């Protein structure tokens, strides 16, 4: 097996194809096949249904909410951007992103270990 810079390769399989002749290196070919099989299994895996008690709990929480209409939209749309609700800009509260649920206006956060 050749020494490959795993930590710098964004995708081992494509890296291998580009830099290693898999026909000449059985280990590389096996690794490409293993990664492809892994991705195929991930793609084919059926997500488990959430527990029924949680589904019931979520629905119960939603049922307690007041109906929302377009005129109650708390999120200020960006200029020129279409929204489903034509009256979306009315009632907007700038700066209320953390409460509004608008993901584009949520604080910057990064996924770090």
């Amino acid at each position: 097996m050749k020494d490959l810079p795993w930590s710098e390769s964004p995708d081992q399989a494509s890296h291998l194809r580009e830099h290693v002749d898999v026909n000449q290196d059985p280990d590389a070919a096996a690794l490409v096949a293993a990664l492809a099989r892994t991705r195929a299994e991930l793609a084919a895996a059926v997500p488990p249904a959430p527990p029924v008690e949680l589904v019931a709990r979520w629905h119960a929480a939603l049922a307690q909410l007041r109906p929302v209409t377009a005129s109650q939209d708390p999120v200020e749309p960006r200029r020129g951007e279409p929204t489903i609700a034509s009256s979306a800009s009315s009632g907007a509260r700038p700066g209320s992103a953390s409460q509004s649920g608008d993901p584009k206006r949520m604080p910057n956060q990064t996924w770090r270990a």
Partner: protein
Amino acid sequence: MAAHLAGDPHAFAELADRLMPRLWLVARHALDSQEDAAEAVQDALIRAHQGAGGFRAESSVYSWVLRILVNICLDRRRRNSIRTATPLPSDDFDELPSHRDPIAERELRLDVWQALAGLPPEQRLPIVLVDMQGYATAEAAALLGIPVGTVKSRCARGRLRLAEQLGHLRTLQPAQEHR
């Protein structure tokens, strides 16, 4: 979503019902406790319900709610890491078996899910988004707020580790370096 905004009292519940399994999948792999994940999904659905008027049709409803959920999960992870330095056991993935799938598929899924649960959380979520939910790496990077290259490298390392855990690399000797 349009029906919800038009005042249909049942529309959002129906929409949420369709989104719940995928949201649950993400939350479950973004957070280490089932209760945290359950609360995150609930918070995301509530925020989506309340902020529905801000939904722009430039993305799917699922992507929109997913982004809300990911932000909530990141917030929770950050809070949890500040509050306590406890280790991160994948405490209870025992709900994974489902009655609706054939035995063979269930066995495959248990393997995949168990292997996935063994990954570090920072590798798990990119793999769920890219390899299981079909997001492009750039989209996953935007969702997670990290560079595209980071998503790619985390996915690559995670896949390699999964391949080992799933037994697909048994023929290779010695084990590949993947850290």
